[in-house]
Each structure stands twice: as C-alpha cells, then as structure tokens.
C-alpha cells in the first residue's frame, strides 16, 4: 500500500530530480547542453561549410593524436610549428640589376619525436616572368640542405616537402653526400630532423631526434623588387583536445558540433513519435472497435516491414538531410510501443466515472480525448521517450556511419563512419573512434539514467520502498 504514483508532468520532473539516478542524468545532459551552448565561442558561424571544405584545413596536421597523450606517454610529442611571414626576417641585396630578397626564420625543436610532415608555401605578387626561388634548410649541426631551387610563378605555391618527389630527390642527394648510400624510402620529416646520418631512413628511432635551432631561408631572385609571403609549417603529431582526422580536421570542433545535432535530432524525434503514437493508440481505443481495428492493422504492417533497410534504401536515392530523415523516421514510427501503452490505459480510463460524467453532460469525444485522456497517458511514456532519444541518435548515427546521413552537418555517426572507412580501426587511430563513441555513449547513458528515474516514479515495480 504505497503512495499513488504522481501524474503531473511537473511533479514527475521534480521527483525524478530527487533521485540519485535523476541527478546523475541531469548532470550529464546538462554538460551536453553546456557544450552545445559553448559552440559560438569556439567555432566560426560558417563552420558547417568549413567542415566540408577539406582545403581549408591545410594548416592542421593530419591524423594527430590529442595533446594530452603526451602526459600519459611521458614523451614530448611534437606540436605544429607554423612559421608565418611575420616570423621571417627580410634582407635585400641588389647584384647587377637583380634583386635577391632573403627571408630567414628560425625555430627551436625540442620534441622527442619527428614531425609528421613538412610544408613550405610562398605567396608572391609578381607580374609577368616567373622568379627563381631557393629554399634552404639549416640544421642545428650546421648542415645545409637545399630543398628547392627553381622557378615559381605568381600567386600561392605550395611545396609538399614530405610528398613531392622533386624535393625528395634533393634530400636524397644530401643523404648520399653524408653516407654514400641512397635510402630506399625518403621521409624528409625524419631525415631532416635526424641526428646521425647512418640512421637515416624509415624506422628512425625517436632517440635520434636532433634538437636545437633550425633555420629556414627563402631566397627570391628577380629582376625587380617584389614582395613575397613565405611560410614554413612543421606539422606535429599531436593537436588540440581531440586530435585531427585524416583530412586534418580538428575533431574537437566536429565532436562539439555533434552534440546539439544529436540532442536536437534525438529529442525531437523521440517526442514527436511518442506524441503521435499516443494520439493514434489512444484514438483507436477511444473511438471504438472499428478505429481500434484499423490501428492494430497498421501496427501489424509496421511489424512486417523492415524499417532500417527501407530507411537505408530511401537515403541511398534521395540523399536525405537531417530534417528529411527526421520526417521519414516519424512516418515509420506512427505506431509503436507508446501506442500500445496508450491503448491499454485508454481502455481503463474509458470505464472511469468522471469520463462517464463528462459523457452525460455532452462533452465532445474528441475534446475529451485531448483534454482528459492524452494528458493522463503522457506520464507513462516519459521513460520510453527518454530511452528513445539515444535510439534515434543511434539511428541517425547508423545511416551516417554508412555514409548516408546528412551530407553537410558533422554528426558523431558521420565522424565514426569517416574513421571506419579510412581504416582507423586497423591503423590504430583510436582518438578518431573513441572520442565520438564516448560522446554518444555519454549521451545515451544520460538518457538511460533519466529514463530509469522516470520509470521508477511511474512504474511501481521499480519504486524504491
């Protein structure tokens, strides 16, 4: 003989907050909401566009682990060193009508590991003939390597030192001069930063990293005065709080953006389907056997059709956005568990006296359904709604994982799908998988706890005595 379960929405929320699980749920979900609210401070307004514009991420390292990995491994993993034009000192000489402009910058390299990649860029505003450019790399031990010597034309020129075979040849020459052998695989980011020439090569030990002051020189030779903006990027192996993906994108921003998308999609889908299911289930039971029969038949139908394959089919041809997906999800969940609950409760309510009374004074049936019946049912669906939020988040994630989700928005499922198709599981790019996965799990834990807290209040079988 306990106290009757509370029925008002406010009352249920209040009671749910009082339980330990309810508190935990509110803390977790509150964190998520805070995260979502912090987005304007972190990322530009056109973030979604930028996320999909892979070229705009060139200054970020590719596949860098999160910065905090350093603290766990105890090795000082390299961060990106970006020498922009303001780091370069400019000197000019004029020799027989030719101008030699030299841009010199230095940086200290004190890390325990090699950089992941090197890149040199130059932006010039010359008109007409191309100019001659010389890029020189000077190591702390005084070795000078001529990385590039050739012509560049106007505009931006990028030298992919780590990938460009022409530049690699120059580096190979340097190794040959030192050791008398030509390495099989040339990895400039290792050779240029390695202590002993005998160990140049692919599997260079990190103990061999040459620490100290490195100098980069850009020399431009031209027959008239020109201005240029040089840049030299030494890409690190760690970046930011969540690392980067293969396409150099800052995963933290993607993960952050995933939060409001997931929360909005999950809650809207869960609440909309619950409302619809309750209305349909209750209406069937309320308006009599014929309607009830109809609802039951629709339920049979949805039992038989395979919803996920059909959603996948639809996404394959129609290229859904997150909002059209929401629409489809709602269409395929017009009947479900909530309508079953609504149906059985409506049958009980129908027998109650005040309903009888309302009938005798001639209240309209539809009005009664919406004013008396449905508000009574809703509390019983709270737990289910809370539980359905992660279910719908995962539905979206499933489609995105297959590459069928919203083509624009970064969602957690899409990040996971990108990671999977880039082979992150088999290469050990764990941060690309674990962090978005952790976020989804955190949200689903939050809603699971919330659902349990609701259930405990409404469902006497879970109430703590």
């Amino acid at each position, binding site marked *: 003989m306990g106290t009757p379960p509370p029925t008002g929405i406010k009352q249920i929320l209040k009671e749910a907050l009082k339980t330990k699980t309810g508190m935990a749920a509110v803390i977790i979900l509150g964190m998520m909401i805070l995260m979502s609210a912090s987005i304007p401070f972190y990322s530009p307004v056109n973030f979604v566009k930028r996320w999909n514009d892979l070229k705009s991420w060139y200054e970020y390292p590719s596949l860098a682990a999160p910065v905090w990995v350093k603290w766990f491994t105890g090795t000082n993993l390299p961060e990106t060193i970006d020498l922009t034009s303001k780091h370069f000192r400019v000197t000019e000489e004029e020799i027989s009508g030719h101008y030699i402009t030299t841009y010199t910058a230095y940086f200290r390299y004190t890390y325990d590991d090699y950089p992941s990649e090197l890149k040199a860029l130059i932006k010039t505003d010359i008109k007409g003939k191309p100019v001659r450019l010389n890029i020189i790399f000077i190591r702390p031990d005084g070795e000078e390597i001529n990385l590039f010597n050739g012509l560049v034309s106007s505009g931006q020129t990028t030298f992919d030192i780590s990938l460009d075979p022409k530049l690699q040849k120059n580096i190979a020459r340097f190794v040959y001069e030192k050791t008398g052998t030509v390495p099989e695989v040339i990895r400039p980011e290792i050779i240029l930063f390695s202590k002993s020439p005998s160990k140049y090569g692919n599997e260079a030990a990190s103990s061999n990293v040459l620490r100290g002051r490195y100098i980069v020189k850009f020399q431009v030779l031209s027959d008239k005065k020109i201005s240029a903006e040089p840049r030299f990027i030494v890409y690190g192996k760690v970046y930011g709080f969540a690392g980067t993906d293969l396409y150099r994108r800052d995963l933290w921003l993607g993960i952050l953006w995933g939060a409001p998308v997931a929360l909005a999609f999950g809650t809207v889908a869960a609440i909309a389907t619950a409302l619809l299911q309750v209305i349909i289930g209750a209406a069937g039971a309320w308006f009599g056997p014929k309607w009830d029969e109809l609802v039951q038949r629709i339920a049979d*139908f949805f039992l038989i059709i395979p919803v*996920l*394959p059909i959603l996948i089919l639809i996404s394959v041809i129609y290229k859904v956005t997150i909002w059209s997906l929401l629409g489809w999800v709602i269409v395929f969940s017009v009947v479900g568990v909530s309508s079953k609950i609504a149906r059985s409760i409506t049958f009980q309510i129908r027998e109650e006296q005040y309903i009888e009374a309302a009938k005798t004074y001639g209240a309209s049936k539809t009005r009664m359904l919406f004013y008396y019946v449905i508000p009574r049912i809703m509390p019983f669906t709270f737990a289910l709604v809370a539980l359905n939020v992660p279910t719908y988040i995962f539905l979206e994630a499933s489609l995105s994982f*297959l590459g069928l989700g919203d083509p624009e928005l970064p969602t957690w499922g899409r990040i996971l799908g990108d990671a999977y198709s880039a082979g992150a599981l088999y290469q050990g790019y764990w941060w690309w998988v674990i962090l978005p996965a952790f976020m989804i799990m955190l949200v689903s834990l939050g809603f699971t706890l919330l659902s349990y807290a609701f259930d405990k209040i409404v469902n006497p079988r879970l109430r703590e005595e």
Partner: protein
Amino acid sequence: MGMATFIAKRALILTLTLMFSVYMTVVIANFGGYVDKLLRDQITFDVTTALSRDPNFAKLSQEERQKLIEQRIEAKIRAAGLDKPFLERSLIQFTQALTLNLGRAAFLRSSSGSKAIADIIMERLPRTVLLFTLGTIMAAGIGIFLGLVQARKALSKFDRIMIVLEIFTYVQPAWFYGILFILIFAFYLRIFPSGGMVSIPAPTEPVAYFLDVLYHLALPLITWIFASFGYWAYTTRNIVLQTMEEDFVTAARAKGLPERIILWRYVLRPSSPPIITGVAFAIVFSWTGAIITETVFNWPGIGLLFWEAIAALDAPVIIGLTVILAYLIVLTVLALDIIYGILDPRLRVMR
C-alpha cells in the same frame, strides 16, 4: 470466438498485410521505376559491347549496324519485360514475389557465379544463422537467467545496478560495440581477427576450416551477445516480477503451497508465454542478420548482402530478401498465435 475462427481471421489479416508490405517494397526497391532505367542502360551497354567484338558485325554498313543494335536491344528489353509500363511491371514482380518466384539478380552473383537469387540467398543464410541465431539464443539464455536472478532479488542494489547496465548496453546498437571491440581486441590486443569469416587463403582441411571459422566468429558473436543480453534480462525481470505481484501468487501462498511449486506453477508458467514468444520472434528476426554489424565485421551474410544489393541498386535482390523476410515474420506471427493459444488459455477468449 473459437480457436479455429481466431486463427483463420489472423491468417487472413496477416496475408493482407503481407501483400501490402510486399507491394510497397517492390515500389520502393525499384525507386518508382528508376531501377528500370538503369537496367535499360545496362542492356544497351551489354549489346553494343557484345556486337562490337563480333567480327561479322564490323562488315555491316552503318545503317545495318544501327538496325541490328536496336533489334537486339529491343529483344532483350522485351525478354526482361522492361518494355511494359512500371505499374504493370511492379504487379508482375509483386505476383512473382508472392509466389516466391525470386528470379535472377540484376548485378550480384553468388560466389559460385550463380545469378539466381535463391542461390545467392541460400549461400548467405547459413552464415547469418551461424552468427546471429547462435548469438540470439546465447544472449537470450544469459539474459533470461540474469532476469530471473534479478526478479528474486528485486530492488536490491544488484538489481538496480543491473537494470541501468542492461538498458544502457541495449540502447547502443551492435555495430557500435563492433567498432570499439575491433579496435580493442583485434588491433591492440590482437586476440581476434578484425573481420571476415575465414582466413585468406582458407584452410583446406575440414577441422582446421571449422576452427578458423570459430576464430573469426568469436568477436562478432561476443559483440552481438553483449548488445542484446540486456534486453532479455530486463524484460524477463519485469515480466516475472509482474506475475509475482498477481493475486493468484498471493493466493497460492495463502494456500500454504511450498515456494518451489509457487515459483514453477504460479510464477514461471504464467510468465513463460511472453518470454517464449519474444525469443521465438528474435530467432526468426535474427535470420535477417544485421546490415551494419555484418558490414563492420565484413561477415558475408544476409545483412551484408542487403547492403551490397542496396549499394548496387539491385532491385530483384532487395525484393527477394524483403519478401522472404516478410514471409518468415508472417508465418512466425501466425505460429506464435497458435503456440500462445496453447500456452496461455486466456488468449483464446481475450482476442
């Protein structure tokens, strides 16, 4: 309503539902005619390439060639039934599907090279049954056992922690655990292979082959069990607990019946119909595999076939799979109605 009338009525309703959903699948799988266009393009391409390899064809004049190409294309299109309007074709596909005349795949083949959809499906089905039916049975076994233990210790600390754990593990789909487990157990710990059903090349000796399949089976099986045991445990707990609170259990106690008898005759027997129905349903559903889980583990079963068919827009295969699936479900629902009627005499009147 007698049992026979009840079954007959259910059978009729389910057949109508079946027909409706099969027709809908036919329309959706063809993308309302889009696939027909693809097929026509394919025929044109096939005919032109086949003829261009024919040395006699080169001897013909330009006009004759054009005519021959058109004739051949038309013949092929007619043979494939593509000359008829989509509505008519959809009805033909519909009747073929209903009569389980599955026909031939548009693009996909079985590993032995057959294009017959029945062959393709029969090649994949045993693999899916091996993984998902086994997994479902094991998960249900573990879950039901846990649920019974929890029902006995209802609302204890153990019970409450297990409830949250069970709901939580069940909310995440299996593929989600799949990627985490592959990363942990296959990449870092190197205990299990990361995917596939056999090593490449596959062992030739039967025992070695069997062991190799088991070795590949382990991780997806564990994943599937982990993702679904919670559902069984939580459902069983609730059903049993609900029965325990029925008046007839209190009455049995008042009658002085020993706890053992109360548990078996008054709690477990009335609780069993919904649990048994649930397990039976899950076993049948397990034959459809799981699209993403099979993709993640590269397990060549029905789920992966579904995904391949969708990716290749192979409408006949999609329809074939859905129809078989729909038939299975309808037959199961009907069988369960009958079994339920036998297990639980209440239902004979209630429905």
